[in-house]
């Protein structure tokens, strides 16, 4: 690949990285999205700050009912972590569905959410998990709810000079069933649609339903119509189907050579139903 000329720095600390960002540097994490853009010269950064040498930015920790995941934690580390698998299986299942093994070995959770590709997998799961994105800039740190973080296609709530430090996801108790269901685009592996579901059963009734959708529109979103249609119900097949049919309610669906808007919408409904049924079965 022959990108345009650029300067390269490898900061050793987050503070150093933030200083570099203040001078206009662009963060480089796994490079799995940034490098292909540079190859095509769609991205032409003058200066890259490689986050890979920053100590303690790649970690998975448990902390008062949540999992804290460092920004440079690779997809593979998430997929294979015993902690994530037991405490937040939805995230592990989603990570395992990203691209191929080479991509998962390099790509990072921070890079994925910062890139905000409308077909990326993580955002669906993070929506269903109501995750928080912790960003740090020269003025300090703030936690941004994922729904406001994902502003639009390739656009986030990050301010210039801010860096993602951590992703926070909740640890679910017993009785929660999860599922990530995806239709992969055959060439890239990205989601034509991806549905992340998190369901809790409280006795007979479904006490919590969270559905994150990616690939369908300009950004990953929560299918609140589906959630509301199921919460408080028992989750019969008919209820699931009816709720799944609301998954694209009010959404302007994408259309490209890989799937037209009507077909994408249809796939979202089918896979929402399948993911809901699977998650429900796992919640039992």
């Amino acid at each position: 690949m022959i990108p345009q000329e650029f300067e390269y720095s490898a900061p050793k600390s987050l503070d150093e990285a933030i200083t570099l960002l203040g001078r206009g540097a662009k963060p480089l994490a796994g490079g799995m999205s940034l490098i292909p853009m540079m190859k095509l010269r769609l991205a032409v950064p003058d200066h890259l700050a490689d986050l890979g040498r920053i100590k303690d930015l790649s970690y998975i920790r448990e902390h008062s009912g949540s999992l804290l995941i460092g920004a440079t934690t690779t997809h593979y580390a998430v997929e294979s972590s015993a902690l994530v698998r037991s405490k937040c299986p939805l995230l592990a299942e989603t990570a395992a569905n990203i691209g191929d093994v080479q991509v998962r070995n390099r790509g990072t959770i921070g890079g994925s959410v910062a890139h905000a590709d409308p077909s990326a997998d993580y955002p669906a799961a993070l929506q269903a998990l109501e995750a928080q994105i912790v960003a740090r800039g020269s003025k300090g740190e703030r936690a941004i709810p994922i729904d406001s973080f994902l502003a639009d296609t390739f656009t986030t709530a990050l301010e210039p000079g801010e860096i993602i430090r951590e992703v926070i996801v909740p640890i679910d108790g017993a009785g929660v069933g999860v599922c990530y269901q995806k239709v992969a685009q055959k060439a890239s592996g990205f989601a034509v649609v991806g549905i992340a579901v998190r369901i809790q059963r409280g006795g007979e009734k479904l006490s919590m339903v969270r559905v994150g959708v990616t690939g369908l529109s300009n950004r990953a979103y929560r299918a609140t119509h589906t959630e509301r249609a199921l919460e408080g119900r028992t989750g019969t097949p008919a209820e699931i189907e009816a709720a799944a049919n609301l998954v694209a309610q009010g959404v302007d669906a994408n259309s490209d050579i890989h799937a037209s808007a009507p077909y994408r919408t249809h796939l979202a409904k089918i896979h929402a139903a399948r993911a809901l049924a699977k998650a429900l079965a796992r919640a039992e």
Partner: protein
Amino acid sequence: MATITKPETLLGKRIRRREDPRLITGTATYVDDIKMPGMYYAAILRSPHAAANIRSLNVQPALARKGVLTVFTGKDTEHAGSVPCGAALPGLRVPHHHLLALDRVYFVGHPLAVVVATDRYIARDAAELIEVDYDVLSAVADPEKALAAGAPAVHPQWPDNTAFTFHQEGGEVDKAFAEADVIVKQRITSQRLIPMAMETRGVVADWRAAERALTLYTSTQAPHLVRTLVAQVLGLEDNRLRVVAPEVGGGFGSKIDTYAEEILMAFVAMKIRKPVKWIGSRREDFLCTIHGRGHVDYYELAARRDGEITAIKLKIIQDLGAFLSLLTPAIPTLSVLMMPGLYRTKNIRADVVGAFTNCMATDAYRGAGRPEATHGIERMVDILAAELKMDPAEVRLKNFIHNEEFPFPTATGLVYDSGDYAAPLRKAMDMVDYGKFRQEQARARQEGKLLGIGMSTYGEICAFGPSPATPAGGWESSQVKVEPSGKVTVATGISPHGQGEETTFAQITADELGIGLDDVIVVHGDTSLVPYGIGTFGSRSTAVGGTALYFALQELKTKLKKWGVTLLESEDVTLADGRCTCNKSGKSVSFQEIAFAAYRAMKVPAGAEPGLVSTYFWEPPNFTFPFGAHIVVTEIDRDTGEVFIRRYVAIDDCGKILNPLIVDGQVHGGVAQGIGQALWEQAVYDDNGQLITGELMDYAVAKAPMMPWIESGHTVTPSPVNPLGVKGVGEAGTIGASPAVVNSVVDALSHLGVRHIDMPLTPEKIWNLVSAGGGK
């Protein structure tokens, strides 16, 4: 142990490829691994528009960039000749194909200027500094639209966008159609594909002015052809041009052509008097390496009620692209040759229209014309079977050429060498348990499941080919050199790039000479090392190149025997198992002793000369015609339209099998590309001529996890065309696969009234059909 056993033959054994260790350890030398002292790097500025006049071109900003040596534009290469098209057809319009665009660009990727700099990064950056003022014109990217009235003219001098028309006819077509019980018609497309060799194209040119000698290292399938053509275009003497194909990372036909960049780098090196390197990016390879297929076919089949096909009509609209690459216009004529498939009908009519479009040229891609023809006829047979409510296997068995009819002259002018067409079909049907599957399918349908089975019984033309039938000679050369030590070097005119002939040719040699496999090396791909050769394409390497080797070895054995006679002082000798033995005394000399004696030359046999070398150029009397049957079982997710291949059975008859491991590998790779065409791959140009599947993120080639398990088997019908009995297997898998997959999917949907689906069978297309309750 006193028993004497004849050493086992190496031919027929699953011997591992000797090529592989260097490939899998990353120690092979590709073009990009070649570095020359003082070498410069070239980057090419390419058109972002499919059609535009160039108002002005300012190279000054690029020249001003530090590290840039020079920039060449169309004006510099204006008189350097035309990128060659080697195919000839009556009335063919061949546009002059300048190395660099002169005042107009014709497709996205069309080269405009070449920047030469001290490194490849500077060269690329500088190329982007060149200022071009385009007057953008309307383009046409679809062959049928190009032929419609009022379409933008790709070449202003030919407003009908027609490069040629071609007609071929045999038998009594009109009569057969008039008398037919049934006529079935279908429009069938074979979409544009990207050949996608793993290694992109690349060239290093090294000009030694003092010697007037040019060496061109290039990723090609046909180094001698490149030498002849580059020498011709640039007006160089061919004996001063050396072309080397180092390790070549795949070609699939796309590297038969001599490309603008090969000539351009030779031109640049001669101008700057320094070595220069150009390596195409993946994007450049997408845009500027030939594409495959690009057919719109209109078929009509006439038949009797009992299933006998009585005539075939075919109209082919071939998307040529903007320029004619080496074989571009010849490819659809191969489809015409192959249009009757394995069936007996002698009544055929074909009309081809070659349409210019503002796209990259199409040319030979694995199968080259035969996959299109096979896809067409195999789909039509299924459509006929559906029309007659007959089983598709039955229709095929009814129409196959019978075994006793070989050699069989076809209505298209070929003579099929040999065959037993029912054998692979029966074998494949047994393997899938066809009868039982039909019962299972009926049950599955009642449960609402979509299960299908499809077959293709393909034939192909291989071993290109008798010289009169080819544009550049169809023979092949081989040279066997025995060194004084008794080690053997085989030089072959073919140019393998993944096919494994370094292994199979060593097997042939070791068997013929009775020596060990490791005593033989096989060299190729360097015009200064091997006699003139034609190259590797059209499944010809073993059938033609291997045969040339076989005959060189026979000549060598005659020489060996002469030396044996002299050394053993007896006329009554036998040459076998690596020794020459006197039949009377039992005394013998080894192959190594003969080799040494031939170079030591103390006593030269009468009628012989010192040394042990023999060279043979072999002209094949005919093509070969491999065949086979592929059967595919598919299941369709009716909610999403996704296709799952449940079973893939491939029975191929490629004549004698020299190395089953390599044959299986060729079939697997071919099937992967055939399934790729059937289900996933498509080169999509939009109406403005932009290639919107120009990245691997959008163009879906088959990857290992997407592949089904392939159950492969063989029948063996030796070819009478060559003494090895081999036919060729490089393209078989690709040719057999796509119709089998499509037939299977159409079968799964047939009860919904679906008759045909064009490739690729995207889930969305299928879902649309299923949700509409079927086809028309």
